[in-house]
């Protein structure tokens, strides 16, 4: 039994490395593959080991997905808000530090969430129905704050609305993975194009210790936890929305603190999705949908097992992420980053066309133009989250 669990965890982590490092390969894709091949899988593996592998993959993914986001400038929706500060660190020679910060966020975010689980279960049982009604208003308020706080309010509003309409359109197209072209364009290719245009060269990367003080770290983790537990339980919300809420409650946070914050959020939201399945019987992401489909009813023992598995996976993933990051930072300083940027752009275009077809390619092009606007106007890029926030607000209100 113990051996089986460990093998499942290892398989899960290997899958998480693959999905985390490859742009465009989402954990949901693997989960759906596992579901469709489950009749065959179940002849060789027990239901429990398939579930443990899926959960390990999901947790490992939230650690490793920062590596392509930092070194290649290719984000997940979950990590996209950290692209700007972490890209800046990369161009200062501190790419590895950006990964360290995000990993710090992921690891401690996970530890905090696991220790807070009993409290979360109690508060969600009591407050979930009440808070649920207010979510559209929390989102409207937090987006308005972000826009009003920006130096250039007019353009922030334009960017928010424009990306919102784009999001509404793209989500109603019949694409298999609508967010992939949308976010690769808005946050990925646009960043790469700008660094090509500005003719930036990558300096030699340093491997050094973190330079962030404890106060910043605690503030980032605290806000990450609060925002994630709000967004993690509620319909239509995920890491991206949690990041918006969090950036409002943090007040002033340095760019290093912000990377810790974003790093913590996607891991916390993932752990909370396990708790949400147990407490409110809701599947909050693709992996959990598959887990509930093949696993049936989940009891307290399962939840404890999942949290234990997450703990083990977190430890191993921290080590793996940091080692892989060292490898990446050695490699990126040796190669011509301009050529790499062009190669990555070609890679994204090919992957998008392969996964989502010509319509997806069109979405990618339009999203790239939309993504260039905040960079050219020097406004915060978080306004582009309107592409997810506006559809959610409309969905919840209508």
């Amino acid at each position, binding site marked *: 039994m113990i051996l089986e669990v460990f093998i499942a965890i290892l398989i899960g982590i290997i899958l998480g490395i693959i999905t985390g490092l490859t742009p465009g390969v989402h954990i949901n894709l693997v989960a759906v593959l596992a579901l469709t091949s489950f009749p065959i899988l179940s002849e060789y593996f027990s239901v429990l080991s398939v579930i443990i592998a899926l959960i390990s993959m999901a947790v490992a993914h939230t650690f490793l997905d920062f590596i392509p986001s930092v070194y290649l400038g290719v984000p997940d929706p979950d990590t996209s808000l950290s692209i700007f500060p972490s890209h800046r660190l990369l161009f200062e020679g501190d790419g590895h530090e950006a990964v360290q910060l995000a990993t710090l966020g992921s690891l401690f975010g996970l530890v905090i969430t696991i220790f807070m689980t009993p409290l979360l279960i109690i508060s969600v049982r009591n407050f979930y129905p009440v808070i649920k009604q207010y979510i559209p208003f929390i989102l409207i308020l937090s987006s308005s704050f972000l826009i009003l706080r920006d130096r250039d309010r007019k353009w922030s509003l334009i960017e928010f609305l*424009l990306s919102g309409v784009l999001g509404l359109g793209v989500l*109603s197209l019949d694409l298999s993975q609508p967010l992939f072209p949308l976010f690769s364009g808005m946050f990925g290719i646009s960043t790469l194009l700008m660094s090509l245009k500005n003719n930036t060269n990558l300096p030699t990367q340093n491997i050094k210790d973190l330079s962030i003080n404890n106060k910043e770290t605690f503030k980032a983790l605290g806000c990450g936890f609060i925002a994630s537990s709000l967004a993690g339980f509620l319909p239509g919300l995920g890491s991206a929305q949690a990041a918006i809420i969090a950036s409002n409650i943090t007040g002033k946070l340095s760019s290093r603190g912000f990377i810790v914050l974003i790093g913590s959020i996607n891991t916390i939201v993932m752990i909370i999705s396990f708790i949400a399945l147990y407490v409110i019987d809701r599947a909050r992401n693709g992996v959990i949908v598959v887990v509930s489909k093949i696993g049936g009813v989940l009891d307290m023992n399962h939840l404890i097992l999942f949290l234990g598995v997450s703990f083990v996976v977190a430890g191993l993933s921290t080590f793996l992420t940091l080692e892989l990051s060292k490898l990446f930072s050695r490699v990126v300083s040796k190669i011509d980053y301009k050529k790499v940027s062009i190669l990555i752009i070609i890679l994204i275009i090919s992957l998008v066309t392969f996964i989502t077809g010509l319509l997806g390619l069109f979405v990618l092009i339009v999203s790239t133009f939309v993504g260039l606007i905040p960079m*050219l106007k020097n406004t915060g890029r978080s306004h582009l989250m309107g592409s997810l926030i506006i559809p959610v607000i409309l969905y919840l209100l209508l």
Partner: protein
Amino acid sequence: MKESTLLKISLCFSLIGVFIILIIAETLEVKQYEISSITEKEVDKKVKIVGTISSIVETPGLFILDIIDETGKIKVVIFKEDDLGFNKYDDIEVTGKVIRYKNYLEIEAETISLS
């Protein structure tokens, strides 16, 4: 190229592009099927069916409905976000993706409304 020119170009292309995407989204009407005409060929395609709910099963995370029309019966899977809001014998319209689960075809619902 100057940043201001680039900004104008980006803004123009964004607006035109968003407009085209909205038009495509509006015109991509999903085809309506009779239940018996949904076969292996439709797997992964988006379909629309109209029928009556003949049974409702609730599992953690899912609602599974049996939908019947004059031609046959099919299972519709709904991921839980909220309460279902429909009852047995309601006539409904479902759009969603056809998937294969074990050896059956099912529809993974995206939108459901009373018909």
